[in-house]
């Protein structure tokens, strides 16, 4: 019960935080001239200066800021975020188009990153200063130091360029025709999931096939941090007194590692895993560019370059929501792992 209370309280708090984010976003937006802000309300490509002036007056873009804010908020609450030039569609439509592509990759990659990071970190700690530890260290250094674009291009070059497998993109041309045909129903926008729901396993495998290389790329780049953290927190846990108690009662090394030490070591890793998830949601610009995946990161990068204000504002709000939600989830997992933390 107290957990439910806690979650409700946090959700209410989340609304306050997001309200702050809207204020911040809006203030930043007020810096740019009114002509650029017309896009929040209408599609404003190819209009004459006089038409523009009419629009500015119509939407009151020179009104006092608070009034403009209220007007904008009213739209936002109705789900109207304006028109995105880069998506050539309303922002909400653009989001529906780009978001599933990102989400699909994140949902596949994050669990794998977490598993690989934690597993290798544990192995490194258990076999400290032996060859397995050194091997995981090399893995970490590679992941830390290689630039994303370099590793991504290298993977593409080796697998696609050289062996001709794992092409970029989200799906092969043949499957694309099926996906855009009438009989393929878009339930979620996640290609793999929709393929299963449409009972088209060929499409499922095809979509998964296209996910492999970007996933590997993300694992190589992102598990390093988690791994090093897990290794050091595991080593710290193994040096604690309660490990001696466990050994003294006759627990085997295995039990000591996987029951007594791991749970303690996981506590700091949870935060990092959460942050990683949130960052991937919006920050895969380079990965999405290299592997030609039309996702949120790519959209945002383009929106930033073309001053597509509505899209930028929306995405800032969106990422704010993601971060706050992930934080809440991390706190709940914390309380689950560590009884010393009292929620509420």
């Amino acid at each position: 019960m107290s957990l439910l209370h806690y979650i409700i309280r946090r959700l209410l708090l989340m609304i306050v935080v997001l309200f702050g984010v809207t204020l911040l976003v809006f203030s930043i937006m007020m810096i740019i001239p009114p002509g650029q802000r017309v896009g929040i309300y209408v599609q404003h490509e190819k209009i004459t200066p006089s038409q523009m002036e009419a629009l500015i007056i119509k939407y009151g873009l020179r009104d006092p800021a608070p009034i403009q804010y209220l007007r904008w908020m009213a739209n936002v609450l109705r789900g109207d975020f304006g028109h995105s030039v880069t998506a050539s569609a309303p922002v909400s439509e653009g989001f529906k188009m780009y978001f599933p592509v990102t989400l699909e990759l994140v949902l596949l990659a994050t669990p794998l990153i977490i598993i690989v990071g934690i597993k290798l970190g544990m192995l490194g700690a258990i076999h400290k200063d032996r060859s397995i530890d050194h091997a995981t260290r090399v893995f970490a250094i590679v992941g830390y130091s290689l630039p994303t674009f370099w590793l991504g291009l290298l993977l593409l070059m080796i697998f696609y360029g050289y062996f001709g497998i794992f092409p970029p993109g989200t799906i092969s041309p043949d499957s694309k025709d099926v996906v855009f045909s009438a009989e393929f129903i878009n339930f979620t926008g996640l290609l793999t999931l929709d393929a299963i729901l449409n009972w088209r396993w060929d499409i499922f495998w095809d979509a998964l096939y296209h996910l492999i290389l970007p996933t590997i790329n993300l694992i190589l780049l992102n598990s390093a941090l988690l791994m090093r953290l897990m290794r050091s927190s595991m080593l710290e846990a193994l040096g604690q007194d309660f490990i001696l108690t466990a050994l003294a009662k006759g627990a085997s090394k295995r039990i000591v590692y996987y029951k007594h030490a791991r749970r303690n070591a996981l506590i700091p890793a949870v935060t990092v895993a959460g942050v990683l998830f949130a960052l991937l949601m919006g920050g895969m610009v380079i990965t999405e560019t290299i592997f030609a995946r039309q996702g949120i990161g790519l959209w945002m990068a383009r929106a930033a370059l073309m001053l597509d204000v509505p899209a930028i504002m929306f995405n800032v709000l969106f990422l704010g929501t993601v971060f706050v939600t992930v934080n809440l989830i991390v706190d709940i997992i914390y309380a689950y792992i560590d009884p010393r933390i009292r929620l509420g």
Partner: protein
Amino acid sequence: MEKLIETEDLYTNFFTFEGVVRALNGVSVVVNQGETYGLVGESGCGKSVTVRSMMRIVQEPGKIVGGKILLFLSSEDRQKGIDIIKRSEAFMESIRGDDISMIFQEASTSLNPVLSIRDQVGESFLLHRRGELLEETLKQLADELKSNGFPLAMAWKGFQRWLFRRELESLRRYEKHVKEIDRELYELEEKTDPRSTRRKSSLNARRDRLSEHDFLVSAVKKSPFLERYYKKIHKIVENKIIELLKSLGVPNPANVLKSYPHELSGGMQQRIVIAIALACNPTLLIADEPTSNLDVTIQAQIIELIKMLKENIITSVLFITHDLGLVAEVCERVTVMYAGDTCETTSVKELFKNPLHPYTKGLLSSVPRIEQVEKLHTIPGTVPNLINPPAGCRFHPRCPSAMKICAERKPPMVEYKEGHTVSCHLYPGEEV
């Protein structure tokens, strides 16, 4: 008196980044059956390392590099004992917590903060008493299956019985193998010819590899929902824990069971640590300064508890402390340690009446007394750095009676008189 555990010339080093810490410099102690034995010395003299070596739980980067640890457990091996340094890790796991247990200096850090008291105390039972637990559960199930019930519930019970039986069988099979290996190892104990040595190491390796893994049982234990069949065992374990906690004077054990270490007071935490150690009625309880971090009243309670346990349950106690007052109160025989050396061993009475070693004398005169008039004596100097310990007698830089030979040769342990051994050049004699 019959010996229970003995270390012979034990050397333990810590291979640290700064250099090799020579923590134990040939420690020889004997704990007899039925006695309370004390180990005293200043902080850092190697008391904890000695007892951790005895259980072979010295943590990285520590390593036992020489000597013997002889264990005389069952009546049959009283004559020659088992050198546990040479035994497999699996053998040690079966000894720890079952025959020898340990309680620690700091109760608050000795308990795992993220596991409930039930998990931590129950683990002792599950590690060493699983056979009996399974038998008890099976008996219960047999009764329940006799009565009539809802068919589905009966089928579920039948399934449980099948799994418990299977687990018990595989456990018994494992125990039989282990017994065979241990018996053969015991017969080979004193043989040192190459063939026996080879055989011994192969047996030890086999002992480590052996597991009582039953694929089906462990698969069910890990699968969601189905794993609930084990609840019956946990219920029995719970009752055992409650009983145990009650006997240790824990009020309201059913609630304590569900709590986590941070929710308990220091005294209660130490009782839980004791409960973990006592779960399987050990022959030897090693208490490593169990009270030094508790306030005085709680300290007195815990000491009383240990005394009571010694009288009623445990055969022998090895009690570590730096408090000579406690030694006088609790122990029968005592060894004084200094910087990894054993200085002298004797009965408590003799130690206070007739201390021989200059370090012991120093220690005794630094204890405040009621009738004290003159200034409290202190031993000049500090405990040496054990990376470069003084050669010869490690006490010689601080010893008021030091001689030339003291810096050159380590004094042998000699029997000054019956039941009183000392290691100091002031008392020449035959090494014992």
